[in-house]
């Protein structure tokens, strides 16, 4: 079975851990060897939250620099920061909606010029999916569903050894009941972006 290393990165509260958990559960249901890793504790207080999903029989839980097969960045600054984990073959999925860090909010540091970074990414990586997941999630019904848009792209990009139907079943049963319909809608929007 093909071995796939996925790095998810974002900011506390964006639901990166939920996404990795959903992939993990779906993989388990479909008999794909899987392990996930999470960092808990202080990082969750507004810091960077990284998690990994390892598919296909990889034992180690972390990804070395230059070795991610897929990078899913839930916030552009965090996508940029995680580029060191990418090779020139890495597929990149990124949210373009910004969540400025505190140091930027209080004027200590500046948010980077995103155009420079995105131009660099376009020159360097063959496959990039970038979208404003926040806006799409709002269209789907809730800003909280931005993570589902990105999960939709990930599933729609045809890289995963897991079926979309299984994933949708998971979203319906394993995410908050009041959000399930919105989550599915957001997920489908993501799938559509990946296929267009």
């Amino acid at each position: 079975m093909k071995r796939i290393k996925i790095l998810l990165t974002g900011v506390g509260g964006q639901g990166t851990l939920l996404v990795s958990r959903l992939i993990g559960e779906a993989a388990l249901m479909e008999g794909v060897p899987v392990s996930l890793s999470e960092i808990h504790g202080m990082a969750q207080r507004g810091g960077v939250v990284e998690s990994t999903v390892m598919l296909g029989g990889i034992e180690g839980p972390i990804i070395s620099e230059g070795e991610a097969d897929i990078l899913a960045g839930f916030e552009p600054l965090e996508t940029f920061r995680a580029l060191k984990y990418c090779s020139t073959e890495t597929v990149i999925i990124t949210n373009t909606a910004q969540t400025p860090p505190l140091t930027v909010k209080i004027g200590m540091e500046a948010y980077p010029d995103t155009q420079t970074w995105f131009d660099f990414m376009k020159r360097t990586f063959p496959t990039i999916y970038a979208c404003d997941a926040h806006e799409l999630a709002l269209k789907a019904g809730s800003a909280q569903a931005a993570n589902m848009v990105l999960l939709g792209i990930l599933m729609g990009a045809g890289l995963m050894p897991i079926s979309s139907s299984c994933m949708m079943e998971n979203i319906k049963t394993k995410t908050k009941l009041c959000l399930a319909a919105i989550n599915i809608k957001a997920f489908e929007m993501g799938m559509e972006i990946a296929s267009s």
Partner: protein
Amino acid sequence: MHELLEDKPGKKALLLGNEAIVRGAMEAGLAVSAAYPGTPSSEIGNSLSGIARDQSSGLYFEFSINEKVAMELTAAAAACDLRSLTCLKHVGLNVASDVLVTLAYIGVKAGMVIVCSDDPSLHSSQNEQDNRAYARLADLPMLEPSSPHEAKEMAKEAFEISETLGLPVILRTTTRTSHVRGPVEYGRLPESKKTRGLFQKDPERWVAIPTFAKPRHKVLADQMKKAERLSTSSRFNWKNGCGKTGIVASGASACYVADAIHDLNCAKDVTFLRLGFTYPHPRDLIAGFLKDMEKVLVVEELEPFQELAIKAIAQEEGLAVPIYGKDGKDGGYLPRLYEFTPQQVRNAIARLLGLDIKRSGLPDLSGLPELPRRLAGLCQGCPHAQTYGAVKEALKELDIEKDTICPTDIGCYLIGVLPPIQMGDYLICMGSSAGTAMGFSVATDRKVVSFIGDSTFFHAGIPPLINAVYHGHRFCLVIMDNSITAMTGHQPNPGTPEHDRRRVSIEQVVRGCGVKNLVKINPYKKRESIDTIKTVLAKDELSVIISEAPCVLHAKRMEGKK
């Protein structure tokens, strides 16, 4: 019913390493457990706490005031023939080490497991000490899982080993085994278990006075000889392959080795000795392994714990096989600091075998603009931020802001060290804000204002406060009381209102310690707080300010649960 109590043998669940340990313990019939929370071990206590709420689980669990108390409680339960478990983070074992080392002499009747979670790379800790050293210091058996499923199996078997030997067993994880989520196959839960213990008095066994303890050390040494035979024959220690290059690893390192062997396609060239029952060192197994090898690489994070033992075994066996590991005479294959990356391990193995590594092209990230940091911050509306703001303003108005020394402590509020608050000048460990304040007050003429949270105050802040009263030390202790142990995930402490516990008032404790200058503030009432703080600080004596306001994150979560 708690998901970890599902009686479905064969079911595969995606569990965190920490949850898997809990499942294993429940399958082993765990009856009594106590712990103080500490990342990366926190979810063990959280899960046990959830299980214990279910009466039918037959489990007693509490979040104790500190690790030492938790270990004492569980040790005595195991002496009463009930299976018990305590869990802690690596530095928590420092607190409980006074118990650990002598507990090894008196031992246990029923199985007792001490889960210790290390944190290489300091993801959420103040140091990255290698607690395998405690297994050797106390001379106790140790198991180290490398996956959630193995964690479950080991937790279960640890109780058997503990009972066989009459000794507590250390189950050591690291962040990368505690916080990995993977498939775990459920086994059977016991149909019934003992929940009432029986203590058989036997002072020569249980009372560690010199006369009785001396022969007990001999008992420990004898039992650990038996333990060595158990580790040599353990199913958790196994060899794979028949190449002439030996690799030894355990825990997360074993995962990186397995992946590297796959990636380098070098299975035929190596023999991989995977160790799970890591102390006592499986001497005969290692000796037999070394005899067949031309060279050996030991892959382990932090200290050269296995490496030095293996080198000693080789010396005793008269074997000249080169053994490589940490930075030594030969340059070293692997670093001693921080957790490994898979790449470091792969490179070390490739170098040992003289293999070239094919790598994909790397992006050239040089010349790109620098990125702003994303530091951890206090939550929006957090009362700690208000308290810091009020103290800062009071110091400013007294014109002593720059000169004041602010020892801080372990909890969410240590984020106050970072911008924008930037208050916090000294921190060692739990409770050190109060202890070190005395040193600053003795050694300088500066004003000293220390910050400590409610849980940390209960844990280790009370003895220094009594000491300060008795010796007349002059400093101000600000107790930031949000009535919960917030940073590790909102565990209760003696100051937490819980329907079935009798809450202990911090104010009464402080008064009971003999503190005269004590005030309470509501940090959200800013002007009032500043004025109160100024009055307190105007006097050159020991004072305590209790800043009382609930954790907003916890309040929000409780609201959500309603």
